[in-house]
């Protein structure tokens, strides 16, 4: 028996391989961004709204690598603080959206019948509306704050998760091992916890990860439109907006620095999430020879 034992597949969920330059680069960018965001208040304890009118609109230099804006504030410093906000909002909003989507999709997929039809028509209806417009509507009804932004994102981004969870449950329900578990006397709660959840949790986690860059963009868009955080607090969106005016006077860095930060970080997250998705799918994994 022992010599027939099959080799166990090695676990390599997070191990990076040499040769995947893009993945490594994305991981480094993301790790750098998260570390910089977390450590910013320690490394660079400068009041983000402190105005220095003797130092306005300076191009990038050694003293100010990101230049300064029309109120003399350091562009890189404010970008880091804006990044903190973006990452926090992106993560929290993605998690909240996943919880909402998971609950709706779970109820629809488990109950079936009219609750399923009703909930899915609600999902279709909301999908038919433009996300940003709906998001603007939600923040416009609330006072501008971090919470309002998160709510606006969460309430517009749970739809895909609901659909994923529902369709997974519908297909899992027909698999013979569910019948076998029922025949073994398992209760509905036990089947959900021990037989269904282990299947859908990785997919939900992946959906959440893929949602983070969307959520970050949504926050940036809202802030750019002046509907996000109050203007004195740095956010990548309102920095890009502020920088527009300076662009006309030749101060290109005011918009470019926060813009570059948001593009790099969201691309890094999206690249890593896509790579993770490829690894989770055995067919793609075989194709890529991972």
């Amino acid at each position: 028996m022992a010599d027939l034992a099959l080799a166990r597949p090695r676990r390599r969920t997070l191990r990076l391989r040499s040769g995947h330059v893009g993945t490594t680069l994305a991981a480094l960018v993301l790790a750098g961004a998260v570390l910089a965001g977390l450590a910013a208040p320690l490394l660079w304890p400068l009041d983000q709204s402190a105005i220095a009118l003797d130092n306005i609109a300076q191009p990038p230099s050694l003293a100010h690598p990101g230049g300064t804006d029309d109120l003399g504030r350091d562009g890189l410093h404010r970008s880091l603080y804006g990044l903190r906000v973006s990452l926090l909002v992106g993560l929290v909003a993605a998690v909240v959206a996943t919880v909402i989507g998971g609950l709706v999709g779970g109820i629809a997929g488990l109950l079936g019948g009219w609750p399923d039809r009703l909930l899915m028509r609600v999902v279709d209806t909301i999908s038919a509306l433009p996300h940003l417009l709906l998001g603007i509507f939600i923040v416009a009804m609330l006072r501008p704050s971090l919470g309002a932004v998160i709510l606006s994102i969460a309430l517009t981004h749970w739809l895909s998760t609901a659909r994923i969870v529902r369709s997974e449950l519908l297909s899992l329900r027909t698999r013979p091992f569910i019948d076998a578990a029922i025949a073994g006397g398992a209760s509905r709660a036990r089947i959900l916890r021990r037989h269904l959840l282990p299947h859908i949790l990785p997919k939900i986690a992946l959906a959440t990860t893929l949602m983070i860059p969307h959520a970050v963009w949504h926050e940036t868009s809202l802030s750019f439109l002046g509907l996000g955080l109050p203007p004195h607090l740095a956010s990548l969106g309102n920095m890009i907006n502020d920088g527009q005016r300076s662009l006309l006077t030749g101060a290109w860095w005011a918009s470019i620095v926060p813009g570059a930060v948001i593009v790099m970080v969201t691309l890094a997250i999206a690249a890593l999430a896509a790579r993770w998705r490829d690894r989770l799918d055995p067919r793609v994994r075989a194709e890529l020879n991972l």
Partner: protein
Amino acid sequence: MTLLQIDGLSVRFRLRDAVVQAVTDLTLSVRPGELLAVVGESGCGKSVLAHALFGLLPRNAEVTGRALMGEVDVLRCGEKRLAREIRGRRLGLVPQSPATALTPVRTGRSLLAETLRAHRRDPGLADTVAADAGLDAHALDRYPFELSGGMAQRLVTALALASDPPLLIADEPTTGLDRPLVDHTLDLLRRRCDNGGAVLLITHDLAAAERVADTVAVMYASRIVEHRPAPDVFAAPAHPYTAALLDALPDRAFTPIPGHPPMLTALPPGCAFAARCPRADTACASRPGGPVACHHPLVSEAVA
């Protein structure tokens, strides 16, 4: 006293343009200590019978008749009662096609320990229960996709035994096993019966039934055509279909039965076997009854 008393069980599936008559007017009983083998060709309704008892039939199934376990009619008692009292507790199932009956993302040990715990037994018994079913302890730590068909078969057997139900329904429990393991599994089922348990063995392996069964029920085209003690059935089959089945065995005449079984969507009003039967005559246009459902049985005294 009986553990399970099935009276007039019929199962029909309504399709868009046809009705599949999967089980017709089936009456059976299982006593404690009895090993009843239900044998028959693929598609004769054996597995539907098992699924009906567990309430696992799809929604388009129409079930009539009764199946009493004690005072509970498992066909009518409702989902809640089935889940809490019957399934896994008084009625165990060794499911068919074990490879798909195992949750792919969990190891055998995790499934077995959970089952033991759920039935208030020591989860540490997992190795012992697996060994009883002929499965090595190290195979328990693998995921279902890493198991061979035979290993998966022994694992589902172990899972069904973990709750130690008074009546075990084993749906083709020897598929994918080689001869020594088939014998091991059959002996395991026989021992359960000798220790007061009962087993309803669903199989198309007549040699397996001959080895361990006390009684045999032969199914053909949704009905039981012969239901008698096993030694009698194998020594002197009374129904021409049973005789033809036995003659098809390699170590007997090795002669196939001519023709095909009728479609379950278009069963004849009389004897379903008449079209293939050498003894058929005009009487066979009406349906025969009794423990041997034949107008012209090979052993006349069996029709009492």
